[in-house]
């Protein structure tokens, strides 16, 4: 049941990304390039997603626990450190080069484009490499929002 629900959530996410234009790097780079013919579409994606999530989260958190699991697993880390800032900065540079963040990169695999497979393979390598670094924040989760 958990896996079927996750599958449905994945389909919703994949459909949403695609309708939003996030799987078109030309659209994404058109948003990131303020000095070009700026395309504001991503503002509408973020607004729709954040408002829906903010309202929905508060609704589901009224329950004591999730419908199919024992507890809500939310990041407990509060620390703002160099790791967070450097990681975000490097991610942004990668996003700005090619216009793929992780969701659209994975969702685009289905089109069978060789350069996208390369990008995803390197992304997986990046995840693996970063996980080799010591992490003071590793797997810290709390139970309730």
């Amino acid at each position, binding site marked *: 049941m958990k896996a079927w629900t996750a599958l449905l959530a994945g389909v919703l*996410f994949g459909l949403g990304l695609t309708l939003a234009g996030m*799987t078109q790097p*030309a659209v994404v780079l058109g948003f990131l390039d303020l000095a070009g013919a700026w395309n504001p579409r991503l503002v509408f994606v973020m607004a729709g997603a954040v408002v829906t999530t903010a309202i929905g989260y508060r609704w589901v958190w009224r329950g004591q626990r999730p419908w199919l699991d024992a507890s809500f697993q939310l990041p407990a880390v509060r620390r703002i450190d160099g790791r967070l800032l*450097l990681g975000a900065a490097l991610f942004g540079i990668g996003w700005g080069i090619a216009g793929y963040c992780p969701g659209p990169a994975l969702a685009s695999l289905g089109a069978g484009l060789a350069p996208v497979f390369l*990008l995803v393979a390197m992304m997986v390598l990046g995840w693996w490499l970063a996980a080799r670094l010591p992490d003071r924040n590793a797997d810290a989760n709390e139970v309730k929002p």
Partner: protein
Amino acid sequence: MHPWLLSAIGGVLIGLSAVLLMGALGRIAGISGIAGGLVVGAGDRAWRIAFIVGLVAGPWLLQWWQGDSGIGLPQVRWPWMALAGLLVGFGTRLGGGCTSGHGVCGIARLSPRSLLATAVFVATSMATAFVMRHMLGGAGA
């Protein structure tokens, strides 16, 4: 339909996905966390794999439904794709999230870490897009 409206509808679907994952499994819908967790051997593999299968199936459903998957072509040549992939993977693991985990779920929770991370990655991505397109002359395009 106007592209902006389509984007807002897409955003709402992404939000519904995040709410479903939190409501049912108690999990943040951060793609780098979900997929990256498989790479580093986090537990609960089944739901992570199911989510990613669904993510790939989304555009396939559109292809079947409207004859267009909505997946666009890469805009830079393969060495740039390789470098971008490495930076995106390394950076999202180091920074603990990406556009979905920090940008959508984190901001929806009003997490100070996520608000700051999102500001940083949007700023560096915009600076990078500027350098790539206006200083390197659309490098690799």
